[in-house]
């Protein structure tokens, strides 16, 4: 019975040893093959034991030549496992709360008499007859109830889930409370909000217009001799794949007002607010899965462009939503953003070629990019960054219905371009590579730290140029799914800081002010859900919103954090970040951050120029004293005048600062001193 798997495993092991860890990205011809290595002695005799237990994690292949892995001495590497009681460690991040996933979003099958449950339990070595433990419930339907992305509006947090949505009250972040569980399956539940409207992505075939949980009926078992006959049509008029729109005027009773169907469904979507159009908002749909039959949705074709120029591949879809009449929302354009402008070919972009050290080497022509995974728009600068499977692309979105590609990059170390975020000044873009799709352990000591990492690019004159990689510095275990995932900016003035989710690698806060030298300034991590098998979990998204960091934990629930001061980040800098208050946050609809010209922000700049030694210590001390005196005098005229008198010398220092970052900080500090407020 186990003949096939056994053969397969042996062959796989043989191949792995022979090729000593050359992996998929290499196969595109970017790196010379490393020398063969001797197999580890115990690796050679494990096949049968491993094979008998499919739940045991696969051994990590050796590091390819010339690559380095992550740090095994980091305290995050060996934390004790557990679903709700795993070991935890952090630096600069305080964990305030974990709200467990509500029961409505957990599998209800706890029937010990179910023979399938018993068999699974036995396979896992837990003995028969008992009720199924919670961690096992997670295993049986890992993704079906998985938490996904986050959006925020006012005091409300919206947590997407493959099974629907949960809405939380975050008016007191340390005492966050569940308000509404909305059941509406269809995966992956990517979410955005705009005023009284909530948008939700649906891509899976179980999605129903009526939010039903039953999906669609499977074929009954065939009678003997009739195995090939089909009785039920696969096409279903009640199936829904696309973007749902809900009215959330009553936060405890969301009502579906529209459901806009699309050929590939919506894996992610991006809310686009046109600064010149108050009546409509737009939704960019990124679809990554199969194109459905034309019998189900007219006009859908999954053919290659040479067979059908109207193929649903090689495009994104754009929905126009009239804000006052969302029920009239519909797809208004399907731009061919992968077109080759010279030939007109709609599959004109491929991920061959490279940046970086191997740029001169010939590269195989690889897959044509036919989809975007996610798009981040930055309307303030008229650009969008698309993470589009084989490429990172830059779109001009000044006309939001007709985005045009202005640049595209690729990277031999990148497996799957996943998401993007701009620095606040629009001079940098951080892309992520979701190597292994998020389901695999990719932060093990032997996983190269250029694979499954962030890639930071300079952005200048609509051109992207590579600067560096950033990967979670701490190694993770082989039962922890881990790779770069969703993050947002932390609004510390004078610095570019991103907080980011790394699945079971936890949350990592990174400074990329100098894009060639990104470094970690804070983190939080838990041990694996399970020590013996990879149970899908970890942080899907980690976003800063109005003073706190929220993490969407796939299996466990919702995490709430706050930043705490360390050598890398001062209390003044944290306080300055908290001065930025936004009414709404959809991370992929990036908004320009603005800081008030007050002394809280000035103190943050002072800490930064002290750290970088851009001002002599005595001048910093004098400035601090003057600020403190002005504050304790409740901004008396004379003390304010004193501050104003110090502005010119700071401005002068700005003009002679060593680094552009310090020049900006000093200039911003001088501007505050000219017109200080408390």
């Amino acid at each position, binding site marked *: 019975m186990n003949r096939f*798997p056994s053969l*397969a495993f042996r*062959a796989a*092991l*043989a*191949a*792995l040893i*022979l*090729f000593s860890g050359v992996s998929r990205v290499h*196969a595109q*011809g970017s790196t010379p093959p490393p020398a063969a290595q001797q197999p580890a002695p115990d690796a050679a005799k494990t096949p049968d034991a491993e094979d008998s*237990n499919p*739940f045991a994690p*696969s051994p990590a292949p050796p590091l390819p030549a010339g690559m380095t892995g992550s740090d095994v001495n980091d305290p995050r590497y060996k934390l*004790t496992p*557990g679903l709700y*009681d795993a070991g935890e460690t952090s630096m600069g991040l305080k964990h305030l709360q974990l709200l467990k996933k*509500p*029961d409505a*979003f*957990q599998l209800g099958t706890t029937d010990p008499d179910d023979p399938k449950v018993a068999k699974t339990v*036995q*396979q*896992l*070595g*837990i*003995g028969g007859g*008992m009720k199924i433990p919670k*961690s096992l419930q997670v295993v*049986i*339907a890992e993704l079906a109830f998985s938490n996904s992305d986050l959006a925020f509006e006012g005091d409300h947090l919206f947590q997407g889930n*493959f099974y629907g949505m949960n809405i939380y009250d975050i008016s007191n972040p340390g005492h966050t*409370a*569940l*308000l*509404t*569980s909305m059941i*509406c399956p269809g995966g992956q539940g990517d979410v955005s909000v705009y005023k009284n409207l909530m948008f939700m992505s649906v891509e*899976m075939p*179980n999605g129903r*217009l009526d*939010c039903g949980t039953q999906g669609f009926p*499977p*074929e009954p078992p065939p009678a003997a001799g009739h195995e090939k006959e*089909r009785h*039920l049509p696969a096409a279903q008029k009640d199936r829904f794949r696309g973007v749902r729109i809900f009215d959330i005027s009553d936060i405890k009773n*969301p*009502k*579906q*007002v529209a*459901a806009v169907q699309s050929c590939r469904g919506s894996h992610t979507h991006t809310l686009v607010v046109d600064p010149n159009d108050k009546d409509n908002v737009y939704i960019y749909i990124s679809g*990554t899965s*199969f194109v459905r039959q034309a019998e189900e949705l007219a006009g859908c074709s999954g053919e290659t462009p040479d067979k059908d120029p109207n193929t649903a591949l090689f495009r994104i879809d754009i929905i126009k939503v009239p804000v006052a009449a969302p*029920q009239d929302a519909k797809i208004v354009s399907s731009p061919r953003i992968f077109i080759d402008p010279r030939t007109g070919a709609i599959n004109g972009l491929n991920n061959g070629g490279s940046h970086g050290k191997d740029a001169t080497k010939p590269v*195989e022509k*690889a*897959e*044509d990019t036919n989809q975007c995974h996610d798009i981040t728009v930055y309307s303030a600068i008229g650009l969008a960054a698309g993470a589009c499977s084989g490429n990172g692309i830059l779109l001009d979105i000044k006309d939001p219905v007709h985005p045009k590609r202005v640049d595209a990059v690729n990277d031999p170390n990148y497996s799957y371009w996943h998401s993007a975020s701009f620095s606040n000044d629009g001079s940098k873009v951080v892309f992520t590579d979701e190597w292994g799709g998020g*389901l695999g352990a990719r932060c093990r000591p032997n996983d190269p730290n250029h694979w499954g990492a962030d890639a930071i690019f300079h952005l200048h004159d609509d051109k992207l140029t590579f600067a560096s990689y950033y990967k979670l510095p701490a190694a993770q275990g082989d039962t922890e799914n881990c790779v770069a995932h969703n993050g947002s900016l932390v609004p510390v003035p004078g610095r570019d800081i991103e907080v980011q989710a790394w699945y079971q690698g936890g949350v990592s806060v990174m400074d990329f002010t100098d894009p060639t030298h990104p470094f970690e300034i804070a983190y939080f991590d838990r041990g694996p859900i399970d020590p*013996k098998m990879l149970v899908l979990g970890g942080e899907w998204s980690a976003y800063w919103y109005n003073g706190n960091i929220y993490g969407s934990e796939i299996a466990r629930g919702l995490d709430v954090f706050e930043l705490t001061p360390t050598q890398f980040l001062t209390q003044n800098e944290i306080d300055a970040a908290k001065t930025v208050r936004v009414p709404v946050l959809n991370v992929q609809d990036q908004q320009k951050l603005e800081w008030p010209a007050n002394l809280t922000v000035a103190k943050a700049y002072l800490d930064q120029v002290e750290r970088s030694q851009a001002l002599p210590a005595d001048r910093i001390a004098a400035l601090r004293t003057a600020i403190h005196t002005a504050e304790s005098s409740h901004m008396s005229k004379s003390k304010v005048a004193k501050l104003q008198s110090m502005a010119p010398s700071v401005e002068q220092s700005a003009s002679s600062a060593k680094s552009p970052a310090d020049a900006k900080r000093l200039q911003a500090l001088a501007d505050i001193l000219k017109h200080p407020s408390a």
Partner: protein
Amino acid sequence: MKFSARTCVASAVAPGSPVSAKIRGDFARVSRISVSGILPQPFSAKALKMFNNVSQQPLDRSREHQHKLRAVSGTALLLCAMLIAASVPVNVFGSPLRAAQTASASQPVVVQPGAPGKPSKTLPPSTTGTLPARSQADVDFMQGMIMHHSQAVEMTALIPSHTDNKDIRLLGAKISSSQSDEIKFMQRWLAARGESTSMAMPGMSGMDASGKPMALMPGMLTPEQMEALRNAKGAEFDHLFLTGMIQHHNGALIMVKDLFDTAGAGQEADIFNFATDADNTQRAEIKIMQSMLEKKSPEEKR
């Protein structure tokens, strides 16, 4: 808290249960630790409370230990109850009552929207998640794909002894490692659902019930094609490998299409995700192999 839920479950394992040697070994080790009393008592009591519904196993040493723990936690609970009961009795003995009292505006609600334009309905707070009925097509797909992937791995295993072509070696390593990983995933998916990890094979050894050779999955190389591949060397092998693997991968695309074209299939998130990923990566590899073939052909003509 620095201890694992798994450990608590582990201490409830009956050692005689038929489990894999590896897991049993580890669990036994954990059990011994907890029996030897290293575990801090307050933690154990709490952990036990958490898992008291899974620790109803008869006998063995850990059972004995749990018994003591339960007595400890029971005593603690009783003490607590008495203390609080003296002051606010209603809060201790009336948890259902308390739930009813607070089921007001502050209580979370479970709602299920209707179709667009239709009202939403409120569901009871006790609602738990349900999944669509599992389709036999899902199980067939996974079992069939294991068989399908296994042949790809078998093909790549020939590479080291059959060709020196660097590009083929790199490609082979990539296919081998990703497909082996996926085989593991599929085995896990099937095992977690109590399904066999191999296809039902009446009569075994590649024959169906009537003694004819088993139908291969789409795109799989026939025994004759496999034989030809085994007997080829160098450039001839490279060519047969590439054309064979393209044929093989195209078969996987057909399998994915068939899955999603089957009523009620592919509705579960794990299989949906897996099939979608498999489709994407194999499409990419076909492209790569096609361009390798194109690049090679002028050389061969010379």
